[in-house]
């Protein structure tokens, strides 16, 4: 595969060591690359970016340190909103200044994806004898910062399926599209995917706001849609196959457990303002009231919020013992950081239904003590999970984004899809749907036939990852 190489060079009036020290300070006036937020400079550590791509607002992105030599070189892997490699070299000048050379490498596939998403390039050409499988995810916008490990897990699943003979003798080809965490962009991306000749199915890992727009499009086009994230129940249709945890799965056992531990009874419900956080709010209220607790307040803010002050002030005033926080992606990270910075972490426990290993990496210490219940955490101690994590590390190296529950869910859904096609005898919707009823994939999470979740893990955030506290039955399994 070819690649695009961009070389930039600039001369600066400060010495290499001074310039090197500026990298990662989080000061946006230094430009988005040097002004990135990189509290630790070590191989594999996360670099948070604020790119000038959000119109008036900054647009979040991620990179990772691959290696560095103090005062000489910084080598980064750019993860989102696109994948690439950025090498910065610092050469001393006779004047005492520095010649900074930045070499950017982006592979042709990624340039083609960006081109296709901008409507400029026809990036999705048909491959002969291949089965195209769509992956609709968020690589930009609020949820984009968590997207790279999902693409990685999807690629890993496809590689394993192809190594195992493909599906019905044909190799699977992944076609990735970005919804930019926006339903309108999601609709355009879905239309583009659905025009891919021979598209077998779409795997969706994005907000339910996008799903509300794209699911009817899939049904109208007759395309099976495998929707994997934690999400609220919606009207069923045979072509819409759902894998994720429901609000009731996540909350019905975990909230009473948290209240038993704190001895408190007062709750605040906060989140972004669209259908899923609202569904979490409604379910949480029902669970809390059933156990004799009290909802003292609720606050919802639009996706992509820049400030959480009104909700934080309301929480502070409400005198609650617990918060259920259903913010998404970058909003989730910023809310939890501000929450900790306000000193609320000491007196208020948080349950965050999207807290997973990838989010915890962004949160660092500010997330400590937060709980969640999901089908998967990296710390799951089973032979299937150890094997899965080993294959992920082998494929993507030690400087890759941590696997998240969302990413692992996509891995399982793609394997389940391939098993079902084989069991049903084809990649057409009829074969897939009949195969789904009789096949299962034994991956890291506890699933029954067709990918239905049987149990969840109760996890607690620590500064270094999620600790598994217990295993809880899914709501549909509970008596």
């Amino acid at each position, binding site marked *: 595969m070819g690649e695009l190489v961009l070389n930039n060079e600039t001369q600066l009036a400060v010495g290499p060591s001074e310039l090197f020290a500026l990298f990662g300070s989080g000061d946006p006036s230094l430009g988005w690359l040097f002004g990135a937020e990189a509290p630790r400079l070590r191989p594999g550590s996360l670099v948070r970016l604020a790119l000038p791509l959000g119109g008036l607002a900054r647009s979040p992105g991620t990179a990772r340190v691959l290696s560095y030599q103090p005062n000489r070189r910084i080598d980064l892997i750019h993860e989102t909103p696109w994948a690439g490699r*950025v090498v910065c070299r610092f050469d001393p000048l006779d004047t005492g200044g520095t010649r900074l050379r930045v070499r950017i490498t982006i592979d042709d596939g990624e340039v083609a994806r*960006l081109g296709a998403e*901008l409507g400029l390039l026809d990036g999705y050409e048909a491959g002969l004898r291949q089965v195209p499988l769509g992956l609709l995810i968020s690589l930009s916008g609020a949820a984009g910062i968590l997207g790279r490990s999902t693409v990685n897990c999807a690629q890993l699943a496809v590689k394993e399926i192809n190594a195992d003979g493909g599906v019905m003798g044909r190799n699977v080809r992944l076609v990735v599209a970005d919804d930019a965490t926006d339903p309108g962009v999601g609709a355009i991306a879905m239309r583009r995917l659905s025009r891919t000749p021979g598209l077998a199915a779409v795997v969706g890992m994005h907000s339910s706001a996008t799903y509300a727009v794209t699911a009817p499009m899939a049904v109208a086009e007759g395309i099976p849609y495998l929707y994997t994230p934690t999400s609220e129940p919606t009207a069923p249709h045979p072509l819409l196959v759902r894998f994720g945890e429901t609000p009731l799965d996540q909350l019905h056992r975990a909230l009473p457990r948290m209240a038993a531990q704190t001895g408190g009874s007062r709750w605040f419900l906060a989140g972004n303002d669209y259908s899923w956080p609202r569904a979490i709010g409604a379910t949480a209220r029902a669970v809390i009231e059933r156990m004799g607790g009290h909802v003292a307040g609720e606050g919802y803010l639009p996706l992509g919020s820049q400030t959480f002050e009104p909700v934080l002030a309301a929480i502070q005033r409400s005198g609650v013992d617990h918060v259920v926080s259903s913010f998404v992606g970058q909003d989730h990270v910023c809310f939890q950081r501000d929450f900790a910075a306000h000193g609320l972490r000491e007196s208020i426990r948080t349950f965050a239904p999207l807290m997973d290993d990838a989010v915890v990496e962004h949160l660092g210490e500010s997330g400590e003590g937060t709980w969640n219940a999901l089908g998967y955490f990296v710390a799951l101690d089973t032979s299937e999970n150890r094997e899965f994590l080993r294959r992920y590390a082998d494929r993507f190296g030690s400087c890759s984004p941590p696997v998240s529950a969302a990413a692992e869910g996509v891995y399982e859904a793609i394997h389940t899809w391939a098993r079902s096609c084989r069991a049903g005898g084809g990649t057409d919707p009829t074969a897939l749907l009949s195969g789904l009823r009789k096949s299962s994939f034994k991956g890291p999470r506890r699933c029954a036939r067709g990918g239905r979740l049987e149990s969840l893990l109760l996890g607690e955030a620590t500064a270094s990852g999620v600790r598994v506290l217990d295993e809880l039955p899914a709501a549909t399994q509970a008596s």
Partner: protein
Amino acid sequence: MSPSDSDAIFSALADPTRRAILSLIGEHEELAAGEIAAHFDTLGRTAVSSHLRILRLAGLVSERRDGRFRHYSVTPTPADAVVAFLTSVYQNSLEQLASAVQDASAAGEAPSDRAEERSA
């Protein structure tokens, strides 16, 4: 492609709404301004027109007038635009770095003071 073309492309594509509009036009042979506006329920006609003008000035879309209707299509010569956009995104960052370093030394402040502040 000249640097000023690159700047215009970067400015045009640095806005998520304009990226979405461009992407939508790319899905069709040609779209009328009204059809584009109909897709974005939060944007008024005037806002859509101004986004279309910026895309047209950057050479990313072309306009065809038919009576009082204006139709838009994606300009063919695309690969360069993606490259120019990506180049400008990184270049923009280094230009800002250079000017921040220059401002700091003009103010007699060592830029590394800032780096020390963060570890404190």
